[in-house]
């Protein structure tokens, strides 16, 4: 329950509990719309392209990528960081707002968490494939072996990545699943009523025998708070560690202490943008306008404005420090190879999309125009991709030794690999639309009656 005087009505349409069960369960219980099949087909083709690229990479080696001695990290790491960033939104959204007791999260958390899981899965593919010999992937696990036993290097940020990302995937996936159990029970009961045996069996298994007992609810609430409270610091640590992959090296442009916070905030920024994209699609195509209200989109828009200001500050700070530090290598990277030079277009694509375009959200009319908001969310996603491109390519292409300078452009294999992960993500999201209730119905029911309205009724 929440104070309606502060936040307004969260769920419009004056619904009762049964209506919410009906509407939230409807996409699961009915045949998907035509566009869903079309989108599924396109996503499958994209995924197959990725499988082909993966096959080429694994069977022929990393030589099929456009990498060279200087630019040893290319689209692989760019896309890895981009996906991990997107994967931060779900948890950031759902858990930070849970801990801050922001009740408007209930309409958005389920989709945001779903997105997290698929984005982290897509991200995890890149380091695996980039290893070259993927069949030795298990070497990254610390286990007693016949090679010494030789343990992994606990001082390496790359190993921290392995630990942090696998923990993050596990924690966010289980948090997502646990939250779905009561809604699976709703679908199970509804299937039983209509006599749909298959659906009852499937969702009955998924619901883990949920019966809605108050004793269970009490422990469930505690579990949610414990998982939430633990995963929130994980959000910070995962992307700090990804930032340390860069920051602990001695490359100009990477070796800065600003990297961990700058990466975390960038991740949350790109993730929120992707949440916005997804929520607008759900709202539009499944007619959930009363659940994802303009108020929700407005709130996300405000948060994006705020984060965008931090992003702008971070970009400017980096440039300022490059000059103020007096390090000629830092100065060269930022002033000769980013804001001017060969890659200036990538720098301005990043700066304009992330720091300038979101400032339009200051205007209420813009926040209320769903089409513009949708386009802006896409622009931010592209801008965040360019941020990683700028960081990776500008620093690597021109290092300390001018004779080693090299240009980089991706090959078709790298591009298809990226398209493949996009396909994987879209497939996951589409399956989520069809098979899982898109809103946390039990949580929405809990916030349906604001405390203020109840007080008025009592008086």
């Amino acid at each position, binding site marked *: 329950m929440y104070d309606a005087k502060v936040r307004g009505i969260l769920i419009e349409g004056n619904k009762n509990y049964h209506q919410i069960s009906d509407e939230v369960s409807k996409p699961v219980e009915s045949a998907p719309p035509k566009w869903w099949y079309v989108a599924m087909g396109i996503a499958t083709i994209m995924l197959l392209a990725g499988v082909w690229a993966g096959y080429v990479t694994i069977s022929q080696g990393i030589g099929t990528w456009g990498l060279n001695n200087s630019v040893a990290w290319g689209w692989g790491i760019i896309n890895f960081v981009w996906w991990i960033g997107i994967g931060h939104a779900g948890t950031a959204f759902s858990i930070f707002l849970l801990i801050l007791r922001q009740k408007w999260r209930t309409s958005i958390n389920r989709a945001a968490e779903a997105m997290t899981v698929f984005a982290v899965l897509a991200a995890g593919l890149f380091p695996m494939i980039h290893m070259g010999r993927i069949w030795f992937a298990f070497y990254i696990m610390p286990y007693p072996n016949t090679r010494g036993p*030789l343990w992994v290097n606990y001082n390496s940020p790359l190993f921290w990545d392995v*630990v942090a990302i696998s923990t993050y995937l*596990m924690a966010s996936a289980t948090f997502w699943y646990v939250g779905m159990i009561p809604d699976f029970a709703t679908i199970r*009961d509804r299937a039983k009523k209509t006599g749909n045996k298959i659906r009852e069996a499937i969702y009955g298994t998924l619901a883990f025998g949920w019966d809605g007992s108050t004793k269970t609810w009490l422990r469930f609430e505690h579990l949610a708070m414990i998982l939430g409270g633990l995963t929130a610091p994980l959000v910070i640590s995962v992307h700090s560690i990804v930032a340390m992959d860069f920051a602990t090296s001695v490359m100009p442009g990477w070796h800065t202490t600003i990297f961990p916070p700058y990466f975390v905030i960038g991740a949350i920024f790109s993730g929120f943008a992707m949440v916005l994209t997804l929520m607008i699609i759900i709202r539009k195509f499944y007619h959930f306008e009363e659940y994802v209200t303009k108020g929700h989109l407005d709130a996300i828009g405000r948060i994006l404005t705020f984060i965008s200001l931090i992003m702008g500050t971070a970009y400017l700070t980096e440039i300022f420090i490059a000059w103020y530090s007096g390090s000629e290598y830092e100065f060269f990277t930022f002033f000769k190879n980013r804001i001017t030079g060969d890659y200036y277009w990538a720098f301005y694509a990043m700066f304009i999309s992330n720091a300038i375009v979101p400032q339009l959200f200051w205007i209420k009319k813009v926040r209320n125009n769903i089409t513009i908001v949708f386009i802006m969310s896409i622009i931010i996603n592209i801008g965040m991709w360019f941020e990683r491109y700028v960081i990776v390519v500008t620093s690597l292409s021109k290092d300390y030794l001018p004779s080693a300078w090299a240009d980089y452009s991706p090959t078709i294999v790298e591009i298809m690999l990226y398209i493949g992960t996009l396909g994987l993500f879209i497939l996951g999201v589409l399956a989520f639309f069809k098979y899982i209730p898109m809103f946390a119905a039990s949580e929405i029911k809990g916030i349906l009656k604001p405390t203020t309205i*109840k007080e008025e009724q009592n008086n």
Partner: protein
Amino acid sequence: MQKNIIGIYTDENLVAPAIEELEREGVKVTDVYTPFPVFEIIHAMKLKSRFPYFAFGFGVSGFLLTFWFLYWSFVQSYPLNFGGKPSFSLSFVIILFVMVINITVISSLIAFFVREKKGPGTKAKEIAEGVNDDKFVLLIENAKLDEEKTAKVSEILKTSGAVDVIEKEVEA
């Protein structure tokens, strides 16, 4: 003779006063089945959970386990020389931080499902229809009540706003 008495409500705000009223009559409510957590009901039933203490315990065990493993494998079993840097170093902190979270999350999940006796394939208790939809179902299980008392309980449930009251005789 023992009885199960079930009161079905459609408004969650009526349940907590009914529980308190029954308590005053000396009747203990076994459980209430609801579509979402209602804090007034949890409060009225005087339910408490030790779950957070357990989770803290899991965290401490996770810390000790991880630290032991890191120390054993990296300092004792096969200490490698990385440019003269110490084997026992501050970078343990990062792995410890993540692994404490990892172990606590997994243990808390296991503890929850073991304590609740729930898992894939568990049959749900069927108390009344619509529990996971829009009904709030109050259950008094195996109440040793004489007829007069039973009538009184039904009366309390009905006057408190229950839309339906069901009595079932069960074997002791």
